[in-house]
């Protein structure tokens, strides 16, 4: 059977992401990649933790952070994680339209998050918290910015997938792609949980 | 096979000869001729680990030679298929447990020595004992500064310390990372740019005499073009002589009598004094002390840390510093000097003595 063969709800397998060898490889390879990403972010976190008091005369975390803004951003990203679960739920039920719809909602929420982050950075810069100011600033922007870049890349990726597959519907060639994109999106959320805890909340506690 | 053994034999013969030729290195430099408590401790650790390791090598070599000679393919046996052995738990346990035991034998003294060498409590006491000598070492691109905070004096390039007692060091770097190493006296410690490291050394009087009164110190961390030339010298003195030296340093002032040297002093005061101080009591903050203190230049053992101490070498150094130490920070800071001016400067600098 060909991967592009038109499937019906009856012939669609229970785990479409792992139904083909390509899918299995993609699935596993992506998880391994996430293992590596864990270490990447750990290095960024570790450096941030080592440098977070080194403000070199610039504003400190406590003076800077806007908790309401961070709270809203957190809610947006957490919710987008749920919506992408919905998307995968519909994928498993072979409901392409609903899957696209929920991925669309995910993208909107993610874009909202990204917008808030850009706004937030902009505010900080206006208060003199620029990248070159101090080791604290450099490590803050690199950690949170790397996460932001992941969000942006995730958005581009999901949108590309949605547009590319809009006409042809779900098959075993693209199901694994949607699946790993949603894994990626959850991982972004996992990282954010640590960012809001370690950077923002611990920044407020001191 | 013969060729193989012959090769081994030749090779070991060659290395043994080479070692004999070289001996164990020079007493003023070699870690193999330890000249103080720290180096002694490290040397015994070396001997212990070497002994254990040679034991391992001997065991491996015996099995190795036996196996390679005994089980090589012989004529007419090309088709022989040996027994396919899976393994042996007994053997595998043996060669797991024995190394663990050997390592424990090595680990215990290692840990204990590591803690002993890090014991710098006496220098950090709230009120530290007056007798304890503390030296602040500051490493700079290709020169060393030694400050004695308790005596308020500063010297460069030649470290002077009392023998037969623990001397404590604060170590830091002012530009890039260096590492402070006096091989014969003890292991190294890095001078970092962003913190202060502390350790201690002890200089043995007998070993000092054997080494000719001077030990060589080295920079052991790549720090730029002249890393290889960033040497310093250590003059350990008996305690009374050391105390006398300190007193002389405290009161030292340049005394210039010679007319040529006077001329040199004028040039010095015009072109050099901005960076170089000529009094050991230099109250400026360390950021302002951008070049070696020259108060006892005439007493030094080396020009620029490496050249033999004579007027000719000093002239060479002043004329073209980069030819002596590439990438040094002095080159190009004082314009071109005529030979006469260099002559005068040389006379002046050589007259700077405290002893």
């Amino acid at each position, binding site marked *: 059977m060909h991967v592009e063969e038109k499937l019906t709800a009856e012939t669609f397998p229970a785990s479409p992401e792992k139904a083909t060898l390509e899918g299995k490889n993609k699935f596993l390879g992506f998880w391994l990649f996430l293992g590596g990403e864990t270490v990447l972010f750990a290095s960024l976190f570790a450096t941030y933790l080592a*440098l977070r008091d080194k403000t070199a005369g610039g504003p400190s975390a406590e003076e800077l952070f806007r908790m309401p803004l961070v709270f809203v951003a957190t809610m947006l990203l957490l919710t987008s994680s749920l919506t992408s679960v919905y998307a995968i739920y519909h994928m498993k039920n072979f409901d392409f339209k609903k899957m696209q719809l929920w991925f669309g909602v995910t993208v909107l929420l993610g874009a909202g998050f990204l917008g808030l982050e850009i706004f937030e950075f902009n505010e900080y810069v206006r208060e003199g918290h620029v990248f*070159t100011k101090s080791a604290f600033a450099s490590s803050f922007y690199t950690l949170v910015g790397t996460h932001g870049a992941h969000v942006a890349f995730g958005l581009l990726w999901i949108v590309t997938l949605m547009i590319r597959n809009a006409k042809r519907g779900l098959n075993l060639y693209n199901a694994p792609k949607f699946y790993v994109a949603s894994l990626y999106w959850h991982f972004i959320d996992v990282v954010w949980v640590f960012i809001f805890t370690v950077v923002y909340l611990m920044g407020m506690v001191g | 096979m013969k060729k193989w053994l012959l090769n081994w034999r030749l*090779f070991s013969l060659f290395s043994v000869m080479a070692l004999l030729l070289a001996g164990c290195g020079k007493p003023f430099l070699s870690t193999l001729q330890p000249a103080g408590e720290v180096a002694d401790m490290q040397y015994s650790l070396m001997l212990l680990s070497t002994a254990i390791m040679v034991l391992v090598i001997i065991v491996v070599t015996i099995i190795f030679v036996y196996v390679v000679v005994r089980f090589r393919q012989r004529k007419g046996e090309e088709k022989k298929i040996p027994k396919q052995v899976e393994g042996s738990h007994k053997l595998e346990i043996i060669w797991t447990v024995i190394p663990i035991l050997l390592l424990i034998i090595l680990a215990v003294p290692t840990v204990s020595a590591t*803690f002993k060498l890090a014991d710098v409590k006496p220098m950090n006491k709230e009120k530290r004992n007056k007798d304890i000598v503390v030296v602040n070492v500051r490493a700079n691109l290709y020169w060393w500064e030694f400050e004695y905070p308790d005596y308020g004096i500063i010297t460069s390039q030649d470290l002077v310390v009392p023998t037969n007692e623990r001397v404590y060091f604060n170590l830091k770097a002012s530009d890039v990372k260096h590492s402070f190493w006096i091989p014969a006296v003890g292991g190294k410690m*890095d001078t*970092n740019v962003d913190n202060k490291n502390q350790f201690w050394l002890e200089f043995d009087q007998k070993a000092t005499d054997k080494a000719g009164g001077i030990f060589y110190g080295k920079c052991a961390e790549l720090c730029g073009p002249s890393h290889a030339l960033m040497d310093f010298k250590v003059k350990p003195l008996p305690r009374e002589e050391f105390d006398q030296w300190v007193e002389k340093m405290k009161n030292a002032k340049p005394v210039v009598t010679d007319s040529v040297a006077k001329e040199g002093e004028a040039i010095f005061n015009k072109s050099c004094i901005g960076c170089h101080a000529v009094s050991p009591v230099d109250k400026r903050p360390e950021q302002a002390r951008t070049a070696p203190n020259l108060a006892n230049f005439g007493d030094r053992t080396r020009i620029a840390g490496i050249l033999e101490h004579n007027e000719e070498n000093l002239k060479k150094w002043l004329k073209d510093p980069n030819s002596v130490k590439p990438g040094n920070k002095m080159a190009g800071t004082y314009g071109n000097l005529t030979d006469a001016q260099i002559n005068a400067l040389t006379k002046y600098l050589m007259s700077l003595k405290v002893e």
Partner: protein
Amino acid sequence: MSTVARKKSLIWDYLTTVDHKKIAILYLIAGGFFFLVGGLEALFIRIQLAKPNNDFLVGGLYNQVLTMHGTTMIFLAAMPLVFAMMNAVVPIQIGARDVAFPFLNALGFWLFFFGGVFLNLSWFLGGAPDAGWTSYASLSLESPGHGIDFYVLGLQISGFGTLIGGINFLVTIINMRAPGMTYMRMPMFTWATFVTSALILFAFPPLTVGLIFMMMDRLFGGNFYNPAGGGNTIIWEHLFWIFGHPEVYILVLPAFGIFSEIFATFSKKRLFGYSSMVFATVLIGFLGFMVWAHHMFTVGMGPIANAIFAVATMAIAVPTGIKIFNWLFTMWGGNIRFTTPMLYAVAFIPSFVMGGVTGVMNAAAAADYQYHDSYFVVAHFHYVIVGGVVFALLAGAHYWWPKMFGKMLNETLGKITFWLFFTGFHLTFFIQHFLGLMGMPRRVFTYLPGQGFETGNLISTVGAFFMAAATIVLLVNVVITTAKGQKAEADAWGDGRTLEWAVASPPPEYNFAQTPLVRGLDAFWIEKMEGKKGLTPAEPLGDIHMPNSSILPFVISLGLFIAAFGFMYRTEHSWGLAVGIIGLLITLGSMFLRSVIDDHGFHIHKEEVLEAEKGVKA
């Protein structure tokens, strides 16, 4: 599409290939080239140090050569050559037709290649990096010019390639094994590849982060390592060694794997204590992450940290010891044939034991204060890396050359190479232990007379020329073999035990006409012992699915290469930023193309397979 119709020019074929066997050859050529470059740099170093106060390479230039020697040998020679072996052998050893991600496999190579080229272009564009291969932060931030920028960006690009390669091999080994090839039946080299890839997966991200920080500091005004802005230079040292220590095992575990294959093959015995070998490999990989700070004993971490890392480091000696004895007992009772690969393997044991024991000596923290950054350490890691890794690569190249190219390397020339190299190696590095103990620091461009360093350095330099001669003989051998070498059989050495010796030399594009059924450790040996010629197939003969070749991996990597130039010259040339962005767009654009263009591969039909198989048999 048929195979015939796809025949294009050789160069285009290699630029677009996604076949792991061709990628192996690309890795071998590129890695071999960089090995020659790094070797030349080593010769220059030894010439300069042949006598005191020499003026062949002075000061800054010497530091550039020294830095590039280390960086090139580790990142651009040893790693890709290891990847060459893995690519050539591992998929066949597990009975697979290809790797899990053929496209990514090609991308990994081209990223490494462009990173390496970028790094080496620094020679022609204002000077190479000069802060040592470790590039410690305070010095590398001070270093003028663009040398360090070349280092940072070049390693970043090739590092991505390595990471991709690592993930690819992990998935390949996990998902693509033939029926019956359980984990505990995998050949030792496959196991080594597996553990190595896991190490790559976890060790390269810290390097990536460290390099990002350094790039930020040098090019974008960051303050990570700048104490004036609150930064901390030690962070670089930690990140570098969290990567750097596992890196040693990334190199040496495949070496162990190669030797394990060779010992078994030429002793005609199965590997002694296979399961404990697997256990030891995994354990070495695991411990490899716990010991990085032993490179930093003199930094001033304090006695507690030093003691912990000292003891942890010593622990690694145990699994390594297990391996040494297992190899000895693999030979014990065997019928040892001294072919060229076996000579290297045999010579490896005493050489590597020497390097291993000095490693334990270095682990003794208090004593390491004396060894650290002295020639003792130089001797130690060259014993490990040359005596372990380079011996293994030379052995592996001779061993698998017939498999990769279909021709046997000349054994006489091979043995001459071995003896020259072996002699030169010990001559060069043995004496350096003593130079270090006698007080000679590492990375010095010269030394003064009268300190006792003359004899040792001269001997060392003479040794280096022996190794150079060996390399020349090897090159001659390669040329002669390519021109008129003897054609190799499938089981080229006659004693092959693993699956790669069951397929033709060189193997067909699809490796196995029928996926084999694996019935135990040393699958091919088992079949041979039962008197069979070939493998037991696990499936009927049918159409074979193959991946399409693609130029996109090349273009993606080229984009990053261009972008690196742009961002590096951003501040001093007006075109810098634009070129940087264009480069990134090329990369992202080709990634986009890859994403939207469906790539289902093609099939080689049953008839063609039959035709091809007949050709081989005839």
